[in-house]
């Protein structure tokens, strides 16, 4: 009896295997047909760009334009067409409540970008030319003095308004749930604003900027682990020629490499990152239920958050 058992099992397995094989063939045919249908449908939709997956992922609204509600939603919920939400608590947008500080900060950023690009037409980030170009801008370039002062004062103001915006957010408790993520984005933006301010400091290549950057990067020497004079720096093999300050300056002294590096960070690197964070920052205001109001604009239960019980 015992040796026969495996044979019986084998034949059984064969029959079930054959059965499942025929089932599998059918299944493949069915899915194939379904895929074909879907492909045809997709090919049809690609004739209209608004029906594509890409369009929908950006604008997020159903493309069924026969429904008037969808048509208005497509306009109202479009972040490019309506930076502000479609409806808003009127008490929340009073100037005594928001001070308009976030908006002013963004406005200053735009002013800085515009005047900064114009300044770049007359500025060479080299030791031989940088300071001469500043004098040239001040005395010879049409509207150069105005441009430079607009950039300078807007930069000072932007740091101030960023702090005031942050102060307002603290006072109104707007950093609390559900806006805690946006608060963190804002803190990153604050750091980026200060870094923009700092990297711009060296660019005139005058005594003030030179010594400010000397002092600022000497602080980097004391960075734990990555600075040559910081805690555990020496033990990890840090010297003035391979530590974090060296990487920031591109050398061991504030020289032409440092000037070029701060120019690139100031004009390209940090503004690019800051713009991305700003877009997220504004988008999240709407996602989190608009500007926080004196009374809650939206109750917690009304938020579209799937809670774990």
């Amino acid at each position, binding site marked *: 009896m015992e040796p026969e058992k495996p044979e019986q099992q084998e034949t059984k397995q064969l029959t079930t295997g054959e059965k499942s094989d025929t089932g599998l063939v059918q299944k493949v045919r069915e899915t194939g047909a379904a895929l074909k249908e879907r492909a045809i449908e997709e090919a049809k939709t690609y004739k209209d760009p608004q029906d594509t997956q890409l369009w929908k992922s950006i604008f997020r609204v159903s493309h069924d334009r026969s429904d008037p509600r969808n048509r208005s939603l497509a306009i109202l919920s479009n972040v490019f067409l309506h930076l502000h939400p479609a409806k808003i608590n009127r008490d929340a947008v009073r100037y005594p409540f928001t001070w308009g500080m976030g908006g002013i900060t963004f406005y200053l950023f735009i002013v800085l970008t515009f005047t900064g690009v114009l300044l770049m037409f007359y500025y060479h980030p080299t030791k031989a030319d940088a300071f001469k170009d500043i004098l040239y801008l001040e005395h010879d370039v049409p509207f150069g003095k105005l441009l430079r002062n607009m950039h300078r004062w807007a930069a000072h103001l932007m740091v101030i308004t960023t702090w005031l915006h942050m102060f307002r957010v603290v006072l109104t408790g707007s950093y609390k749930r559900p806006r805690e993520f946006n608060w963190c984005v804002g803190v990153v933006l604050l750091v980026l604003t200060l870094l923009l301010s700092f990297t711009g400091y060296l660019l005139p290549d005058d005594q003030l900027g030179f*010594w400010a950057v*000397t*002092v600022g990067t*000497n*602080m980097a*020497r004391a960075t734990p682990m990555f600075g040559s004079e910081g805690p555990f720096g020496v033990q990890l093999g840090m010297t003035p020629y*391979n530590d974090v300050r*060296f*990487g*920031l300056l*591109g*050398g*061991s*002294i504030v*020289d032409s*490499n440092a000037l070029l590096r701060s120019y690139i960070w100031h004009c390209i690197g940090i503004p690019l990152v800051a713009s991305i964070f700003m877009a997220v920052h504004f988008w999240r205001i709407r996602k989190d239920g608009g500007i926080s109001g004196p009374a809650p604009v939206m109750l917690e239960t009304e938020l579209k958050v799937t809670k774990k019980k």
Partner: protein
Amino acid sequence: MFLRFFLPRSILEPSSVFRIGSPDDYALGVDTKWQQQYRIWVTKTSDRLFVIYARCTHLGCTPDWKASENKFKCPCHGSGYDSEGIAFEGPAPRPMDRAHVSLDAEGQIVVDVSRLYDWPKGTQGKFEEKGAFIQL
């Protein structure tokens, strides 16, 4: 790899080793003639000659030699040092560092500012080590 990119392999900076003449060229006291070129001061006392690296130990500015007050004064945050670079006022945490000095075959002083001798607070300091000064 991304971080490594920002650390250049070679840098075009002034050499850290240079010659500054013989000890007889210097009078007693502080000599500031190399400040602009090499960022050093040469101090000569009755029995020693040493080179102070002209970098404030607070945050790295270059102090000024005030001959009338017989002290170094940092313009950034007001640290004060006596004629031997010993901190006595302001936020500086320690005396200014001294550079390695030696005499070559011609009797010229060879300075190496990449080898510094410091005197951190609460320690014996390295000012008495060989190379921190030239015995006259």
